[in-house]
């Protein structure tokens, strides 16, 4: 499979970014980390917007950068579409003008993307004649995404497209974002500091911190890892799992999810049996019991084995990695006092009480 390979460095007086990695050119790769970790800078370097960057970028065998400054392929020749956090629509053109600005300059590109298709995918038809200054934040971002798609890009770079929006607007845009990469089949790098967005949208993720790559891999795997600092901005430790619906119980309005050996029961889902879903379980929504509890309202009690315990001596909390069979893991965050009092050690068989499960977009089919 073709990849985007890079080995880059950029230095500022108070900050250095040094990252080397290879990203498969398919699906969505999230660049995740707290503000100021360098994720936007990395995205800008990949787009060709930072002339001071040193190093090498290879896109599917094509050299985008080799060395510094003049050894770079100019940004407009890369075919990398960029969605800016602040949209950057051209105020002298209306919505339609902004879209056709991109469309006219990409007609030579062989691609299945057409103006009508983009307009309908993002519901832009009612906005076409509007001035961009009259658009709401969410509308503006939708137009910006449409404009970028119309550059018929080979790579889609999205720099926190939702960060400037309030909760309601975010919820309005997310469904569009979820559909797009698969509908248009463009490999995407998505920058975000919001772990919910990452878990919901991305297939794999890179975690950046202080200009370094901390971890990279499939979202499920990275989120399971205990050695990630859990105190990053908006970083809520937990796991993302994929499970299939195996049954519905209309009487109690519940649905059963199959975790291979164990069943998870959740409020009824509006999806047919056999549908694969991505679900997330936060570490602090897991409690531990050494014996199967009786007389308790929690329905989801999974048998598990402790794989790892991270309990720093100066912390109140301890992080546990639990093996629940078939290569699946849960993370639990409990007090260090409980670890000691219950005598929890790696290898011990315990029961994991799941208090709450979150689902990614309904109908979001895991591959």
């Amino acid at each position: 499979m073709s990849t985007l390979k890079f080995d880059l460095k950029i230095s500022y007086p108070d900050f250095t970014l040094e990252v080397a990695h290879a990203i498969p050119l398919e699906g969505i790769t999230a660049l995740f980390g707290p503000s100021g970790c360098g994720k936007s800078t990395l995205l800008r370097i990949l787009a060709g917007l930072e002339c001071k960057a040193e190093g090498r970028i290879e896109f599917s065998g094509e050299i985008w950068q080799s060395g510094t400054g003049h050894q770079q392929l100019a940004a407009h020749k890369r075919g990398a579409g960029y969605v800016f956090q602040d949209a950057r629509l051209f105020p002298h053109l209306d919505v339609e003008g902004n879209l056709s600005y991109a469309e006219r300059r990409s007609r030579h590109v062989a691609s299945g993307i057409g103006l009508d298709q983009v307009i309908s995918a993002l519901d832009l038809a009612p906005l076409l004649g509007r001035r961009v200054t009259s658009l709401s934040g969410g509308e503006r971002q939708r137009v910006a995404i449409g404009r970028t798609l119309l550059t018929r890009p080979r790579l889609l770079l999205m720099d926190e497209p939702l960060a400037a929006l309030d909760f309601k607007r975010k919820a309005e845009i997310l469904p569009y974002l979820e559909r797009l990469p698969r509908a248009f089949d463009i490999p995407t790098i998505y920058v975000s500091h919001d772990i919910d967005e990452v878990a919901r949208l991305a297939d794999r993720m890179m975690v950046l911190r202080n200009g370094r790559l901390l971890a990279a891999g499939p979202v499920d795997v990275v989120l399971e890892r205990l050695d990630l600092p859990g105190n990053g901005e908006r970083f809520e430790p937990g796991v993302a799992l994929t499970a299939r619906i195996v049954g519905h119980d209309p009487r109690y309005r519940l649905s059963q999810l199959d975790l291979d050996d164990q069943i998870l029961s959740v409020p009824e889902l509006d999806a047919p049996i056999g549908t694969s879903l991505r679900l997330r379980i936060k570490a602090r929504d897991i409690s531990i019991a050494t014996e199967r509890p009786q007389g308790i309202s929690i329905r989801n009690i999974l048998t598990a084995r402790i794989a790892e315990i991270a309990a720093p001596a100066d912390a109140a909390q301890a992080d546990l990695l639990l093996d629940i069979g078939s290569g699946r893991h849960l993370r639990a965050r409990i007090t260090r006092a409980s670890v000691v009092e219950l005598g929890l050690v790696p290898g011990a068989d315990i029961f994991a009480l799941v208090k709450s499960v979150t689902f990614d977009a309904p109908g979001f089919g895991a591959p």
Partner: protein
Amino acid sequence: MTIPDLGPLWLTLHLATLTTFILLIVGTPIAWWLSVTRWRIKAVVEAVTALPLVLPPTVLGFYMLVFFSPNSTIGGLWVDMTGTQLTFSFVGLVVASVIYSLPFTVQPLQATFETLGRAPMEAAATLRAAPFDAFLTVIVPLAARGFLTAVVLTFAHTIGEFGVVLMVGGNIPGETKVISIAIYEHVETIRYAEAHVLAAGLLAFSFMVLLFVYVMNRRFPLHVGSGA
């Protein structure tokens, strides 16, 4: 009332139009370069382009006279190439006006470009627009106000120029006798009536131009900025 010879008026408008046109072509790249460069030499270029603002016109006129003279290198080269001379000729006046009015084109444009920042060019580049394409289709429309200001200031300043014209061009009817020189001549020869007509005409014209600009500005506010 005596109607004065209107030749100087047309000559002045011709000179101002030509100067403004040339300065848009010459001054825009300079202003753009000044707005984006990080070189240290920037300060030197800025100081040089601003010199005409602070120097007395006589100083500028004196040096131009020296350099344009057929006996000098530049002036001599010009004579060799074109068979005409730069001093006391219309072409010489155009060159002098371009130099003299340069800051009135460069400074408003540079300020506008700096206000726009790098964002519009970056956005255009990611939309596959080459730099020159992006400049013409994004920066120029977004900087329309700056261009308007630059054109008006350059045009008006060229019309009002006197000292440099007198020193480099002299007072040759149909060649270098622009309106300010003509008014001066009328006053010197105590023909106040003609001086009045030309002076009042210039006053009315300048006022109309400025009025037009400000009315246009109000009626068609340009949406410049991030639009946030």
